[in-house]
């Protein structure tokens, strides 16, 4: 798997992401700068990591979504290339209109940094083939703006087309307001684009891939991508 991690000024999770990609795929990811205008030839996966691009000025992800590297990412996605956005990366993909909806301020107005439980809704996508449908995984979140909203038509479409891949849930997989820390509609933690090749999610699977951390629940996402690409090749 040839991956590329996009670095915007103010991003701070790019090294965690690069470490995970290296550990799981066995290949060093390319690090791209926001001012670059092309992806390395043969890129299989583009990852937009978490952080605070441009200090979250204007709106989270708004300025990064309009930076010089983005047209190349739009082209890559339009050709079916795999794109993963985590946390600020999810916000950037929404602002870039590669995904629908918006991440609003958390309902309780607090920055929330802790582990949460996610229910994996489907296993038949490149991003979730490392899991079973209905499986619950424990991964960390760290965000102030993770409250996913979209108009009711968009939500109905996302739900109807099975494009919600992760939901905040209880350890038993119950989707319930008590386990929805940020107030996202329907407990939405991660969504797919219409074509199924762009995923945005607020939680950080890249931080739970090594036993020393205490959980390897995030590994399935990356291992699944490696397997998907190996089979496609």
């Amino acid at each position: 798997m040839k991956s590329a991690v996009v670095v915007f000024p103010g991003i701070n999770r790019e090294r965690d992401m690069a470490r995970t990609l290296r550990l799981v795929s066995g290949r060093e990811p390319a690090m791209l700068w926001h001012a670059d205008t092309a992806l390395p030839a043969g890129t299989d996966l583009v990852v937009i990591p978490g952080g605070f691009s441009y200090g979250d000025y204007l709106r989270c992800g708004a300025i990064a979504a309009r930076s010089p590297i983005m047209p190349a990412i739009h082209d890559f996605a339009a050709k079916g290339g795999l794109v993963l956005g985590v946390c600020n990366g999810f916000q950037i993909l929404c602002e870039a209109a590669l995904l629908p909806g918006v991440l609003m301020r958390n309902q309780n107005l607090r920055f929330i940094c802790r582990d949460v439980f996610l229910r994996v809704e489907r296993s038949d996508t490149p991003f979730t083939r490392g899991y079973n449908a209905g499986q619950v995984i424990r991964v960390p979140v760290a965000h102030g703006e993770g409250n996913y909203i979209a108009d009711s038509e968009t939500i109905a479409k996302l739900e109807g087309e099975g494009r919600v891949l992760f939901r905040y849930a209880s350890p038993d997989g119950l989707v319930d307001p008590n386990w929805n820390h940020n107030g996202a509609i329907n407990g939405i933690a991660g969504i797919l684009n219409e074509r199924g090749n762009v995923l945005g999610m607020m939680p950080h699977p890249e931080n739970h891939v090594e036993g020393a951390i205490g959980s390897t629940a995030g590994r399935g996402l990356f291992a699944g991508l490696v397997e998907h690409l190996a089979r496609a090749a």
Partner: protein
Amino acid sequence: MKARVTVTLKSGVLDPQGKAIEGALRSLGVSGVASVRQGKIFDIELEGGDKARAEAALKEAADKLLANTVIENYRIEVMG
């Protein structure tokens, strides 16, 4: 030429910050506040004196960057 772009949340979009401000005003004892919605104001200086051109540029700025039209409305005022 001076102009102002005002960006506000669309009605129906939940505004947790506005709600918090509303609660704070209530706890300060400011009476008669029914609700608060928070928005943004951009004061922009434009080159040249063509009002129509200025309005077109501001509309482009608002659509492309200043507002996220999924959740926000904007209003443009060219003040001359």
